[in-house]
């Protein structure tokens, strides 16, 4: 009998904890809405990567003789006022629509998460300084700052991207700090501290995986937000250089000929809405999936 005293159950017997997992923790198949979102994002990504190959025509080739053509024939979605093929420009415009938000979401996630983890885990003076900076940034009207700065410095796509990175960081910081604050007093963090795990490693390796669901969802939210923000800036003429194929710019260029070829305006508008919404929904779905992965009970 002594050999059974210390031994745990045989591994074959599933433990009650595994059995009693809540329904939310079960791996659920994504709903059709999420599948559609993934398809939309995949199409946009293909347009970004292979844009020049799959575009039926040169997006910048002008043909004044065939300006404002109706959809059909060689021009599936018609042409704009300079006779450029709208469909090809849509494909080429995916690049600025996707890469900028990707940079903004990625860079602000990196910096914001580090700042948030630092503030939430260390607390005290570090937390005070970081959070007062965040409050300061939040009190600044973001769009106004971009308009003033890029107006002064002459505008440009990458300037707008850079400004949006700085303006987005506080969002990530705040969200991750709140989540890290909740994790920091948990026994697993304290156990790591008593083992002597270095602080940076506790933040990055122990706490971050547990706050990653909100961090990732927030990054997707930021992607969607900056996609519309960048399109808006291009629409106002503060984004990409004139002539560049870009969904926001196409909106403003096609506006005066709205009733001649409405597709030239509606198509980029629809793409902006669809891509932003899809990224948002995928972010929510990922958050749910990631948080079920570590369900404790």
């Amino acid at each position, binding site marked *: *009998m002594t050999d*059974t005293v210390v031994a*745990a159950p045989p591994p074959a017997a599933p*433990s009650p904890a595994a059995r009693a997992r809540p329904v939310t923790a079960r791996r659920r198949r994504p709903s059709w809405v999420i599948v559609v979102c993934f398809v939309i994002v995949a199409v946009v990504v293909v347009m970004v990567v292979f844009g020049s190959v799959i575009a039926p025509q040169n997006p910048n080739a002008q043909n004044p003789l065939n300006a404002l053509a109706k959809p059909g024939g060689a021009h599936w979605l018609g042409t704009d006022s300079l006779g450029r093929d709208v469909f090809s420009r849509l494909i080429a415009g995916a690049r600025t629509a996707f890469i900028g938000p990707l940079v903004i979401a990625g860079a602000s996630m990196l910096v914001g998460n580090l700042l948030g983890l630092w503030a939430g885990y260390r607390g005290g003076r570090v937390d005070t300084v970081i959070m007062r900076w965040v409050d300061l940034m939040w009190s600044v009207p973001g769009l106004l700052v971009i308009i003033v700065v890029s107006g002064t410095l002459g505008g440009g796509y990458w300037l707008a991207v850079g400004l949006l990175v700085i303006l987005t960081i506080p969002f990530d910081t705040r969200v991750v700090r709140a989540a890290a604050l909740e994790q920091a007093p948990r*026994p697993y963090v304290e156990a790591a501290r008593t*083992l*002597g795990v270095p602080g940076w490693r506790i933040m990055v390796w122990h706490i971050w995986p*547990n706050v990653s669901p909100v961090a990732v969802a927030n990054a997707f939210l930021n992607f969607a937000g900056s996609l519309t923000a960048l399109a808006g800036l291009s629409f106002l003429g503060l984004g990409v250089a004139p002539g560049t194929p870009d969904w926001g710019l196409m909106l403003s260029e096609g506006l005066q000929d709205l009733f001649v070829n409405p597709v030239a305006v509606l198509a980029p508008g629809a793409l902006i809405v669809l891509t932003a919404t899809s990224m948002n929904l995928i972010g929510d779905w990922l958050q749910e999936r990631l948080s079920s992965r570590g369900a404790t009970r």
Partner: protein
Amino acid sequence: MNDPLLDVRDLRVSRRSPSGADTLVSSVSLTLRAGETIGIVGESGSGKSMTAKAITGLLPPGITASGEVRYGGRNLLTLREREWRGIRGREIGLILQDPFTMLNPVLRCGTIISESLPRAGAPGTAAGRAQRRAEAVRRLAEVGIADPAVADRYPFQLSGGMRQRVAIAAALARDPRVLIADEPSTALDASTQQDILALIKRVQQARGMGLVLITHDLRVAFAMCDRIYVLYAGSLLETAPAGELEAEPLHPYSHGLLLSEPPADHRVRDLVSIPGSVPAPDLVAGSCPFAPRCRWAAAACEQGAPPLIDLALAEVPLPGVAPGRLSACLRLPDIRDDMVALREQAGQDAVAAPPGRSAAPLIQVSDLRKVFRQGSRTVTALDGVSVEVGEGESVGLVGESGSGKTTLARVLAGLESASSGQVTIDGVPAADWGKLAGKDRRRLRGTIQIVFQDPYSSLNPMHTIGAALGEAIAIRDPAAKNVSGQVAELLQSVGLPAGYARRRPATLSGGERQRVAIARALAVRPRVLICDEPVSALDVSVQAQILNLLAAIRADRGIGYLFITHDLSIVRQISDYLYVMHHGRVVESGPTDRVLASPADPYTIKLLDSVPRPEADWLAGSEALSQGRAAS
């Protein structure tokens, strides 16, 4: 004999699931008469709470019950929600475990009670209001709250024990004939537990109510109940009058449960634990549910679930057993002598601990103070505490919640810094770890480690077991080779298979997680291990496994323990030297056996007295005390 008040027949509770239905309770029958107390005893996952919820019609959505619950000539399971309202509260009252969440936090206590009172007086008039308030105050007095001002307080302004009293008053407001108490004292301190149980017992006897007490604690059941139903994996395995069950359990499970419980009055050599943990009812359907964990399991046990039969009325009656004892064990005639022998053997006293203390103190704490500031409020958690832990010594630290025992552990582990006083660990002054040099801090990390109370949150849910242990190994020796081999060794040393390295904590049971937490602490090869209530979140049978494991590790590695607990019977088993803490001070200390045999401090005496005992005077003893305390 009078007719049963409540009669449950073949109750079955199941949960809808993607694979059909999961059984939660497979077959439970019980009867309750007026003035009788029955206890439903079982570990977590045994289905005891689901049984209570089924009887009160409070099953969560997706969970259904079948069978029969007869009360007042009706089958309660067929009632509609509207009809239930006439039963719940009026006929069947319910007390739940957690007094912190059970009361509506935005209502005053008087309102909580008067809202459950039968409608009396003219509603909405001043006279009606005054009448209801007077009644609420009278009800509070009945549960031992003499101060009428409590009726105007909010639940959060009261202590846990007071809240439980208010909850009892609310449950009794409509004078139910049956009271169901689901772990009513589990969340409370030992002495408060005694008060609350005594109160429930007194009210029950005064009103002649039937009481169903649901508990995991056999000692509580023996002290309170006339008849006990032992539930395991959704099935009843044994039912018997409380006294007879305590004298001789007639099922291997109840037998094992009794042996796992550390005895309150003497130290045993080795606790007899039941291996493994409670399985899901569906996993053991078609066989004796306990067979996989039973030391006497035979081929016959696997063929169909044995029925619960009255041992005196069986074809071959068991000698010396009165009618009314039911057991679901097939092999009882063969194994009865073995069971008795094992109990005798386990009851033998262990060799007493060496009376002296080891020469070299590893941890020395003198006049330690810790004050927490919250805004303008200050809380003194430690008020001049002096404690010593010798090399390889097992030191117990006993106290109720708020006594400062956990704060002391956290200061020692470097998770908090002391406000004043000296802490010396292995010759290093460690009152504030933040001021230590890196070299010293590393040395202390390798000297002192801590095991936390809650095994569910002390492991990172996102890391595999292998990653968690591997990290600890790498900290001790950054150049460690064959980390996976060392992880397997560590797992083996705490009785887990090496394959667990690939699992995540969510797939482990509470006991298994606590084993991993111990392995992680051992990975840095500490010389002293602080155990902060390491078994209080675990089931009794699993608790014995962990206590045995800790004893085996100590014998094996010669490390010392600072064992923090509220449970005096555990401290008797595991420690050589004992400190008793109360309100941030050490009120008594000395060799464990001496302190427990002849306590000097009144607080220690009270603590010892609050350990549940089956004798009638245990509950009676608390009455006088609690009346006095409530009045003050």
